[in-house]
């Protein structure tokens, strides 16, 4: 078993091992608590077969919701996206498509949709402005007091909007994020991310809701109370991850941000290593940007309930550097005789290894139990998943190592613009 010991190497060695291990258990316990407190179907539904979906409860009123879809070169997917949105069972909504300076056929497709459907509206930005500006512009151009923002390549489940709107009955709620499910499962990377979204993202979001604060809404699908957005000045145009930033701004102003696992949204995940790396590097750099922005004395007291979330993020950054040092020393040890205090003789061996292997198994098993109701096709992808928590931590390590200097060196006023993400293999 690793011990913290007295030398820095012993400390980093122990920290590298214990931090992800115990965080995994914290997520599992938090997620199980969340399930029994908030998510478990009502008694009347429990006796029905598992493939019978639970329906959202009726609301006392159905205020207008504007679904905002920012688009930048989305000609391939936007019609499917709108088709799913039009099938929403929420009775009072319109769709606002924002063409953010696309260079492909997006403009013509959006105009065609606006002529076809009375509840589809279109904004054309004269030049590409970035997602944050597109969202803010659209928010001002609607009288709706509730906004649902989804990515142009995501398919919103017809019941999702109703599930998210239930939360706004509570006046404290400023935002609700849905449950992204990966659509493309053709390659190993696609299948791994199916599991990742449930065994890592789903568990963390549930555990964070148990605590009471979440690190971020999913940018791909989130609903907002407009009064809350107005209170925090809408989206920041200079943040790489506008979703993390707005989540923090809302919670610092004491708005509640919720997660609704029943609000499913089908998303396209990268299926090449390059695409996955670019996506995760952007998330990681954006997360560090937000951490640096909020690490300010004037925020400290009003953000006190965010401290554990901030601390957890800071610890994960420290972990990335810590495990890198240990791995490098371990590898050097094969070629050079290092002094004893720098020598790493064992890397996750003995009973520590069994503990890590068992934890992966437990984590995947619990997430399978929690999520199988929503995504019954996910079961077969779990064969690929047992070791995935290990791969997740490795990816997280590499992206964090690169992201920290990128975030530190980035011009704080520089506008975050769109990049074209990898959307996997298309049939």
């Amino acid at each position, binding site marked *: *078993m690793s011990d913290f010991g007295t030398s820095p190497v012993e400390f980093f060695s122990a920290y590298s091992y214990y931090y992800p291990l*115990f965080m995994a258990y*914290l997520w599992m*316990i*938090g997620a199980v*608590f969340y399930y029994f*407190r908030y998510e478990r179907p009502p008694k009347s539904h429990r006796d029905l077969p598992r493939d019978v979906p639970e329906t959202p409860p009726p609301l006392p009123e159905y205020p207008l919701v504007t679904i905002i879809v920012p688009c930048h070169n989305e000609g391939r997917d936007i019609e499917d996206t709108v*088709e*799913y949105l*039009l*099938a929403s*069972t929420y009775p009072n909504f319109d769709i606002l498509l924002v063409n953010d300076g696309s260079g492909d056929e997006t403009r*013509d*497709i959006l*105009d*065609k949709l*606006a*002529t076809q*459907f*009375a*509840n589809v*509206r*279109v*904004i*054309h*930005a004269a030049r590409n402005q970035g997602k*944050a500006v597109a969202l*803010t*512009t659209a928010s*001002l*151009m609607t*009288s709706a007091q509730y906004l649902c923002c989804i990515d142009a390549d995501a398919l919103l489940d*017809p019941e999702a909007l109703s599930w998210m709107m239930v939360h706004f009955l*509570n*006046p*404290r709620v400023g935002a609700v994020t849905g449950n992204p499910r990966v*659509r493309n*499962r*053709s*390659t*190993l990377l696609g299948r791994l991310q199916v599991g990742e979204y449930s065994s890592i993202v789903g568990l963390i979001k549930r555990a964070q809701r*148990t*605590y*009471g604060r979440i690190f971020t809404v999913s940018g791909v699908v989130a609903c907002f*109370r*407009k*009064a809350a957005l107005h*209170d925090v000045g809408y989206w920041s145009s200079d943040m790489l991850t506008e979703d993390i930033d707005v989540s923090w701004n809302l919670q610092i102003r*004491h708005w509640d941000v919720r997660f609704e696992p029943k609000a499913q949204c089908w998303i396209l995940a990268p299926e*090449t290593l390059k695409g996955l790396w670019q996506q995760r590097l952007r998330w990681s750099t954006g997360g560090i940007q937000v951490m640096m922005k909020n690490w300010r004395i004037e925020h400290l007291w009003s953000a006190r309930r965010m401290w554990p979330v901030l601390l957890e993020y800071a610890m994960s950054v420290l972990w990335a550097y810590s495990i890198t040092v240990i791995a490098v020393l371990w590898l050097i040890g094969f070629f050079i005789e290092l002094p004893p205090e720098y020598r790493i003789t064992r890397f*996750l061996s003995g*009973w*520590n290894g*069994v*503990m890590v*292997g068992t934890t992966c198994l437990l984590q995947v098993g619990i997430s399978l139990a929690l999520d199988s109701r929503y995504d019954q*096709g996910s079961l077969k992808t779990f064969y690929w998943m047992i070791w995935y928590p290990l791969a997740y931590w490795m990816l997280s390590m590499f992206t964090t190592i690169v992201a920290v200097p990128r975030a530190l060196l980035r011009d704080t006023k520089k506008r975050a613009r769109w990049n074209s993400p990898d959307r*996997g*293999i298309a*049939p």
Partner: protein
Amino acid sequence: MEQSGPRHSTLKSPLIERSDLQSPQQRTLYGALTLAFWAFWFYLWLPLLALLAWSLGLQQAFKYMVVLGGYHEVIRVIGLYSLIILLLGGALVVWAVYNIMRFRDDERRTGGLPVTPAMIGLDFGQDPLAVERWQGEQRLRVSHDQGGKISHVEVLSDDVHVDV
């Protein structure tokens, strides 16, 4: 014009499962990655596998695990880990229950006032009457300045030429 409405049954399945479309390089790379991670995962289980192997000759297992005290380390690790997990998880659950009890039936916050065109006009330097008009239009063209602020809004006519 069509109207929106539930068209559940007409929606195509969102899932894309076409492994046949992978390139040979992708197939090879991902196959190798899968193999490597499975091997590493089994490496983690070596002590348990060794224990199982020993168990096949029960005398040896008894000697190593009981007579020579091999079980001490197993019990120590499991006990210590369980204690830490219990403390961490317990703290989270106690905190969650405390908050549920504390804020039950004690909502002091309101949902905020509706955001009106006048409020938007004030914050974004726009004419409230113009904002109200834009909110009712179906097609707009918006220009922004260098800082991303709205500089000009043009209402597009309904007479659209669509060439798709």
